[in-house]
């Protein structure tokens, strides 16, 4: 394991930012810490970097206990959401900062900085100052700066959070390729589940200072450990005790065994996909995700009475949120696939 965190606890005043968190990050992997704001994901990342002291717990980097080490000695590259660019230095100065601290010779620094600038596609901009760069360029500069010191692990705290949607998407693919090229163990923090699934091999879902579940994108989507994970990694409808993804809500015209009567409230075309909002007999609002073709075949219209056939329904019995306590391995518990949900009607 490149990085292991065991039993990490951190409290800010009354706020429990980390509550007995343990994670394992394999060598050369690309891992996402995913969660809503206030879930403790950034605090965990900062604790790994040594920018935050833990109240309890241990951080191990490449088998060595790093808990007592200052950030300078942990061999981590850290990228901040708002770049943390040294504004009074040029791009060259920024990227070469760590090398100057390490007393490299001028020629060595020159060669290494230019190599990195090529890697992040900023060659030619070495003489610019950060305020002359776009947001995406600044973040790539920050990444080159973090990579310059040849870190054992690369940590990115919401690296694309301050960028607009288009640049964000470009940089995602680009981070993915960079990781494939350099092979450096990488952890990045995000609140965007699509981003996490797009970029990372392993996802760690956090909520209220705890790890809810970790595993691959498919694991989490298909076998969520609890209601929180199920609703955080995708859309979800609640039918009584059961949870169903909108694309698993089939609409049929005739009543059948296992179907629920519903009225179409609204049809929202979203290009290829169509969102059909329906209301059940007991007043529950749910929605179904259809393709354009299906909608046309069924000739659905607003106000129509139809029947829903939910499949792949999941239920999470008991107090599911405490189940994820310190979990570091996938713990998909399937609560009765294709369960009968007629009770909800």
């Amino acid at each position, binding site marked *: 394991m490149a990085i292991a965190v065991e039993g990490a606890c951190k409290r800010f005043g009354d706020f429990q930012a980390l509550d007995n968190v343990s994670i394992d990050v394999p060598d050369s992997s690309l891992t996402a810490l995913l969660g809503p704001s206030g879930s403790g994901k950034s605090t965990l990342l900062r604790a790994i970097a040594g920018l935050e002291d833990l109240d309890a717990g241990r951080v191990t980097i490449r088998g060595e206990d790093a808990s007592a080490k200052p950030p300078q000695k942990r061999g981590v590259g850290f990228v*901040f959401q708002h770049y*943390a660019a040294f504004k009074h230095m040029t791009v060259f100065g920024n990227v070469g*900062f760590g090398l100057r601290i390490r007393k490299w010779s001028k020629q060595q620094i020159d060669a290494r900085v230019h190599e990195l600038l090529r890697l992040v596609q900023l060659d030619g901009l070495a003489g610019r100052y950060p305020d002359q760069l776009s947001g995406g360029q600044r973040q790539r500069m920050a990444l080159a700066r973090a990579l310059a010191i040849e870190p054992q692990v690369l940590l990115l705290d919401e690296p694309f959070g301050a960028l607009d949607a288009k640049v964000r998407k470009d940089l995602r693919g680009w981070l993915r390729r960079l990781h494939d090229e350099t092979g450096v163990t990488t952890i990045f923090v995000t609140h965007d589940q699509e981003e996490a699934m797009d970029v990372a091999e392993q996802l760690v879902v956090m909520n209220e200072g705890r790890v809810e579940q970790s595993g691959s994108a498919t694991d989490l989507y298909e076998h969520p450990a609890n209601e929180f994970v199920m609703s955080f990694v995708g859309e979800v409808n609640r039918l009584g005790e059961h949870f169903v993804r909108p694309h698993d809500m089939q609409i049929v015209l005739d009543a059948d065994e296992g179907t629920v009567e519903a009225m179409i409230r609204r049809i929202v075309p979203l290009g290829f996909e169509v969102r059909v909002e329906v209301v059940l007999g007991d007043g529950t609002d749910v929605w179904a995700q259809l393709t354009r073709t299906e909608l046309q075949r069924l000739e659905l219209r607003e106000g129509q009475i139809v029947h829903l056939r939910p499949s792949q329904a999941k239920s999470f019995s008991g107090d599911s949120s405490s189940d994820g306590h310190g979990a570091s391995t996938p713990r998909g518990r399937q609560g009765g696939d294709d369960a009968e949900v007629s009770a909800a009607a």
Partner: protein
Amino acid sequence: MTVGAPAKWGLRTLGLGYLALLLLAPVAMIFYKTFEHGIGPPLEAMTSSDAVHAIWLTLLMVAVAVPLNTVFGVGCALLLVRHRWKGNAVIDGIINLPFAISPVVIGLSLFLLYGSGGWFGPTLAEWGIEVLFSTPGMILASIFVSLPFVVRETVPVLQEIGTEQEQAASTLGASAWQTFWRVTLPAIRWGVAYGVVLTTARVLGEFGAVTIVSGSISGKTETLPLYVAKSFEQFNEQAAYAGAIVLALLAFTTLLLMSVGGRRAKSQSQTNPAGGT
């Protein structure tokens, strides 16, 4: 808020008139009076031994008080902004004391402390150190009155730059000392520089506190402002005006050095045309 054209011009005239009457007219008058009979008389006045001594003594005050207050001010601002604890409010209040207390009172308090009947006075006298009516006392007074400027100018800039740049430097291997010199100080340099200018101006012009602790002995403990005041009282108006001009020039030079330095730094950062992809 939007105002019509006549109102705009009215406000401008009012503003400029106010400045002209209260600031420009007195300064212009001094210049006029000084050079009324050419450059000869003021030059002669300023080359007298008392005047030359007063100029040197004033520069000595600046040379000692400004660096000390700069180091203290930056350190104190770092403490206030970067290390939050309950005592900060108290420290903050104490730093403002020189602003709140009249310089004359500051002078008196130093007198009480270092005088022959004060707490420190007799002990220091035993060691052969004279504080009152000599340079050390004047330096103490100068430091006291000009202490808050660097702190007050540096604190907001430090708050504004935040801690991320410093944290980035630490993950890149920089020690606290390296981070301060290479990251923090360059980032706050304008706040510090402005504080230094204000401190310098205050030390150059300090009158009240220095008068009391120095005794204003010509050729010994007389700074330029004291020299100007004494010349004026003794109806030596030519010397008073000339002294005032030298003071003004010294302050002006400080401001000029600061803004020239600023422009150079600015043009440096603009040598590469901006543009993004």
